[in-house]
């Protein structure tokens, strides 16, 4: 090796302090999300009360056997929050899975489409993005019924348009890169090129976006439940808890505050994760061009 070779080798990206701060963001995000996730996981193993146990007396205050008090039917609030955490995670993971599956497939197709097909797909995605998620959810609920599955499907479909449009742009950009041409010159087929080079290179940006979509999906499910379009009554979605506690907010604020706070914690948590991932995964951080 020549001396110039040694000099030319790029040092580790000169972003040490920045990436440490970023990973702190990631850690904080994981802690917040993890706390809420813990509630959901524990709820499967142990609950303070049975979800339909109404023995606590209406709107009991915190303490006295009920850590956070009870709701207007006498059900334990902590129990409801814990089962609500399951629903929040189910909605987030479910919607993001639908959005990733449909969105990535459509996006890759749209990136390769030429001429009228490209125009049609783009127009279709634009319309789907402009279409209000709530309206879409109402249509899905009307066609099926008001269940968590319907909400997840509606939110996932609405988000898949956003994901597809992002994927289309990302794939188009990657396809112009030299390493794609290089892979093609050695006889790599299109499917292999997409799986081996295109998807891994859009993945960092995509995964950050999916993390953001997770937060949005949790909020969207809460809104749908608030409007009665989400999981039906025995299931304690945070959105429905908020709606039920709304009337008694002045006398028993805990019923509305607690699900609200959890919702905020979870959404902030996943947004911090997205923010932290952005730098940890960013190809520009790893493959800094010198």
């Amino acid at each position: 090796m020549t001396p110039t070779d040694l000099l030319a080798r790029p040092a580790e990206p000169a972003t040490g302090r920045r990436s440490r701060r970023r990973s702190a963001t990631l850690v904080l995000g994981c802690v917040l999300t993890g706390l809420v996730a813990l509630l959901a996981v524990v709820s499967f193993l142990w609950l303070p009360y049975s979800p339909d146990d109404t023995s606590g007396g209406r709107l009991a205050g915190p303490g006295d056997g009920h850590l956070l008090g009870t709701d207007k039917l006498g059900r334990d609030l902590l129990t409801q929050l814990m089962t609500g955490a399951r629903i929040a995670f189910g909605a987030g993971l479910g919607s993001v899975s639908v959005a990733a599956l449909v969105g990535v497939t459509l996006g890759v197709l749209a990136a390769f489409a030429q001429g009228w097909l490209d125009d049609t797909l783009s127009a279709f995605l634009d319309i789907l993005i402009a279409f209000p998620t709530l309206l879409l959810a109402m249509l899905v609920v009307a066609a099926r019924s008001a269940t968590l599955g319907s909400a997840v499907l509606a939110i996932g479909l609405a988000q898949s348009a956003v994901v597809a449009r992002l994927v289309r742009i990302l794939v188009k950009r990657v396809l112009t890169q030299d390493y794609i041409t290089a892979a093609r010159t050695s006889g790599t087929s299109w499917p292999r090129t997409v799986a081996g080079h295109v998807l891994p290179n859009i993945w960092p940006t995509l995964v950050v976006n999916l993390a953001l979509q997770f937060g949005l999906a949790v909020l969207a499910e809460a809104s749908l439940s608030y409007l009665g379009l989400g999981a039906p009554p025995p299931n304690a979605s945070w959105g429905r808890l908020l709606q039920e506690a709304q009337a008694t907010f002045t006398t028993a604020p805990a019923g509305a505050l607690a699900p609200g706070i959890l919702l905020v914690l979870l959404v902030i948590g996943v947004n911090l994760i997205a923010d932290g991932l952005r730098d940890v995964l960013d190809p520009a951080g790893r493959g800094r061009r010198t």
Partner: protein
Amino acid sequence: MTLLDVHGLTVRTADGRPLVSNLSFTVAGGERLGLIGESGSGKSLTTLAVLGLLPEGMSATGSVVLAGTQILGAREKELTAVRGRDAAVVFQEPLTALDPLMRVGRQVAGPLARRTGLKGGRLRAATLDALAQVRLPDPERIARAFPHEISGGQRQRVALAAALACEPALLIADEPTTALDVSVQAEMLGLIDTLVREREMAVLFVSHDLAVVAKVTDRILVMKDGRAVEEGTVRDVVVAPRQEYTRNLVASARTLESALDLRSAP
């Protein structure tokens, strides 16, 4: 036997502007042809047209027959079979020609696996061997590195290893030393020369630098504005250039050569 037969090749942009015009040349099996011309004369587009990989919107007319396959108008499936097997490319800029997020070893193992069908430990061994053949020090470490973790010269060796892993009948080298540090250019040229000779491959060597082309090729085709302006053996073109344009290329190569001589003199 003719390996590559380009006849009347014309490459046009989407709006019909010709970038390569009526270009014809042949490369026989095992032969080395130099494609030379100033930057922007259409050399890279010619090499891409040979593999049916023109940028989106461009179209080619004429005839390109590579190892018996008509490339222009061929279906994607035929092209995928031809690429790599009949011709592989080393590009000018090794940093952008390697996937930034894939370990270097896998980028060589990919084409190697496709040609040989090797898997697992034997593929790994063959990959390390391929890296060692391009004289990379410590192939184990290099194989695990990402492109940005190795030097420019090392990256170009990896790109060469990936191209050679296809064992193509024709190696297309598009300015393979231009992006490299002057001090490693000669080494790289020597390496290509040796490895190609061992494998009896034909070479289409593209460069804007006559001095470089003269070192590795037998015959030279001079391009200007997408047209061939002169063709002949290296000797003929260097000693008795017929065109003003070629004379200028020769003269600038001489100046560079003497400048280098001066520099390397103690």
